[in-house]
């Protein structure tokens, strides 16, 4: 193109250079951004409104994500953006809480490390009026140094569900001790069906219930390891016996949190939470019974892991007061939403005693039995039990269950890690 022509336009090379440069810049600036769960605009809800980011893990029950979004939309004092996280929610949350770009409001389980590193704010002021309406265990699991840091959203008892017809056919009564359970699992195993499914890892989820059912605890009240001694060692040895009996299902396409294995007839019994009851009833109808984790022997009590989720407010939030106000609205004031969340998708026990008493769906059948077992044998988490302790405990169980290592020796190794962690936290 002749150079003397004014405004001759861009040469092909110029055009390529400029668009390439712009594209590179755009790519770089895009890479510098991050998805914090907040919308890019205020969502059209009015300029002055605060925008809050609320993080959930992915619930397995259909309709839960839409329900969470419905609650968020119904809140008028702030724009609430729900971030629904499939996969490893725990790791994503941990990373998110390190920065101010994490959630304002999130669900999790409390551990003392979160308090010591100032990741969560105390919620005593918003829960004070209804404190008595919560179960003591649900308050204790969220209390550190006398302050309450979270509002329990749901209680998820974890127990063993079984096919009544299969046990009846084999002439087996619901197991009451761990030896009964091992014997039943063996008896129920055929070339098509395994006796029990406790997770593809061979039973790590059973660790704490088994410990409680042997008279132990993860930590004592005065913050010492509570999982040593003859009872726990014997019980962990029994878990190994169950694993080695070839009567447990391993390698299921879905893990123990999903009722796929029992629903597809792969097993006669499954360790799972009450959340799966509607899904199991849909497939199996009334052919469903429930037992707690069986006791080591007659001198011990069975155990139920009373798990669940709690709502927290991030201390790094730029809008702590607005976030607290939202938590109060959703998880204390809006009883209809709490009831919806607990009962219309999977089954969970509403943490508020007043709501639990009204929960008609939990007043009959296997759901009612589970609620009763939870009341009698339920154990909640101790916030002094940190993820580092949990990892040491899990490694100990893996070595005992899968490798057949000596339980007493493995307990001693785990105790050392737990003691080091306790020294760091409590001096």
């Amino acid at each position, binding site marked *: 193109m002749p150079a003397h022509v004014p405004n001759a336009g861009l040469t092909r090379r110029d055009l390529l250079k400029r668009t390439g440069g712009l594209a*590179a810049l755009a790519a770089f600036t895009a890479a510098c951004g991050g998805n914090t769960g907040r919308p890019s605009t205020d969502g059209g809800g009015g300029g002055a409104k605060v925008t809050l980011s609320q993080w959930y893990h992915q619930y397995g029950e259909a309709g839960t994500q839409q329900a969470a979004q419905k609650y968020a939309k119904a809140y008028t004092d702030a724009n609430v953006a729900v971030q629904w996280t499939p996969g490893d929610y725990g790791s994503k949350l941990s990373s998110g809480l390190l920065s101010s770009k994490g959630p304002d409001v999130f669900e999790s389980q409390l551990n003392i490390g979160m308090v010591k590193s100032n990741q969560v704010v105390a919620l005593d002021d918003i829960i004070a009026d209804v404190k008595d309406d919560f179960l003591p265990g649900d308050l204790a699991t969220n209390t550190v140094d006398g302050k309450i840091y979270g509002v329990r959203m749901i209680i998820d008892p974890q127990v063993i569900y079984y096919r009544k017809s299969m046990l009846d056919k084999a002439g087996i009564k619901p197991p009451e001790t761990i030896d009964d359970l091992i014997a039943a699992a063996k008896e129920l195993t055929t070339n098509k069906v395994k006796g029990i499914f406790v997770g593809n890892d061979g039973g790590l989820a059973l660790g704490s219930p088994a410990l409680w059912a042997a008279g132990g605890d993860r930590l004592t009240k005065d913050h010492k390891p509570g999982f040593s001694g003859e009872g726990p060692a014997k019980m962990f040895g029994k878990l190994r016996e169950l694993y080695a009996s070839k009567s447990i299902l391993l390698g299921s396409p879905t893990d123990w949190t999903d009722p796929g294995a029992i629903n597809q007839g792969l097993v006669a019994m499954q360790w799972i939470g009450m959340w799966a009851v509607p899904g199991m009833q849909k497939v199996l109808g009334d052919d469903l019974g429930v037992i707690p984790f069986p006791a080591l022997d007659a001198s011990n009590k069975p155990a139920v892991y009373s798990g669940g989720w709690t709502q927290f407010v991030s201390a790094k939030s730029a809008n702590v007061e607005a976030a607290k106000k939202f938590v109060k609205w959703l998880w204390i004031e809006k009883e209809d939403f709490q009831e919806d969340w607990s009962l219309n998708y999977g089954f969970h026990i509403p943490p508020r005693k007043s709501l639990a008493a009204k929960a008609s769906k939990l007043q009959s059948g296997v759901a009612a039995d589970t609620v009763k077992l939870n009341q009698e044998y339920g154990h909640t988490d101790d916030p002094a039990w940190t993820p580092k302790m949990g990892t040491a405990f899990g490694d100990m169980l893996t070595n005992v269950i899968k490798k057949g290592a000596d339980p007493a020796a493995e307990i001693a190794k785990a105790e050392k890690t737990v003691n080091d962690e306790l020294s760091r936290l409590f001096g």
Partner: protein
Amino acid sequence: MSAPVKTSADPAAAGERRGPRRRRQKGIAGNTLWFWLFVGPFVLGLLIFSYLPILWSLVLSFFEAYNTVTPSKFVGLQNYVDMLTDRNFLSSLGTFTIFAVFIVPLTFVLSLALALLVNQVKVARAFFRSVFFLPTACSYVVASLIWKLSIFNGVRFGLANTVLGWFGIENIAWLSTVDPPWYWIPLVTVRLWLQLGFYMILFIAGLQRISPTLYEAAYVDGAKPGWQVFRYITLPQLRATSVAVLILNLIAAYQAFDEFYNLVGNVNYARPPLVYLYGISLGSIQDLGHGSAGALILAVIIMLVTLLQNRIFGFGKAGD
């Protein structure tokens, strides 16, 4: 009269001389500008997202840093001492060693074999190259899930168990059985499937660099086609490629994460270093002091092993 001599004072002449230089200078400035405009963002990205975190990790490794990326208490070399005496970290290095012992020689031999086969194909050569190279484009996570859910699940309708069933063999819980450690089969095969094509392409490039005259000379000297030619011509000529493949393979084995995390999870019997370090620093434990120390120890080990391997095989020597 002699023709007037043009001096430097002659503006026209000076203009003639300076003109092209000015244009050249302007051109260089333009090129430099465009160079930085294209390369700058990536250099900046490298600095911000790679070098700065490495430096920050170095700082954190000397401090206590639980649930925070801000150093909280100086502990000197204690984090390094803890990690070097941590049986789980040492065991993760053991897991890596077993993995490397399987994956490095297998990848080397199979990718070389594939390259030799594909290179000899006379028809549909591009098709065969593509077929073996395509898995490289697949995500490790997706491939791991296919391996876990469809091929190596432990129930009767898993592909591997279905095939075993034809021979009357009982179902195997591939990913959950420690004794015998069947989990190594899915772990190794998924990586082989994913990376063989890439190394095959490297070997094909290496094979195509070998001058045909060498083969002709070998035949003239009486070398027999097949093993003898491969042993004395092909393999020595592929030395540079072979060393590169071995080094890349070993580094990739150290960095194994996705297939372990997605196939077996964070279990202590099959936990490579990155899964362990992820668990303690970026996972729920959030112990970034120890995690940083472990990451730097691992980086130093990778560097030392690479240098050692380099020295042994003489990568980049003249004549390669």
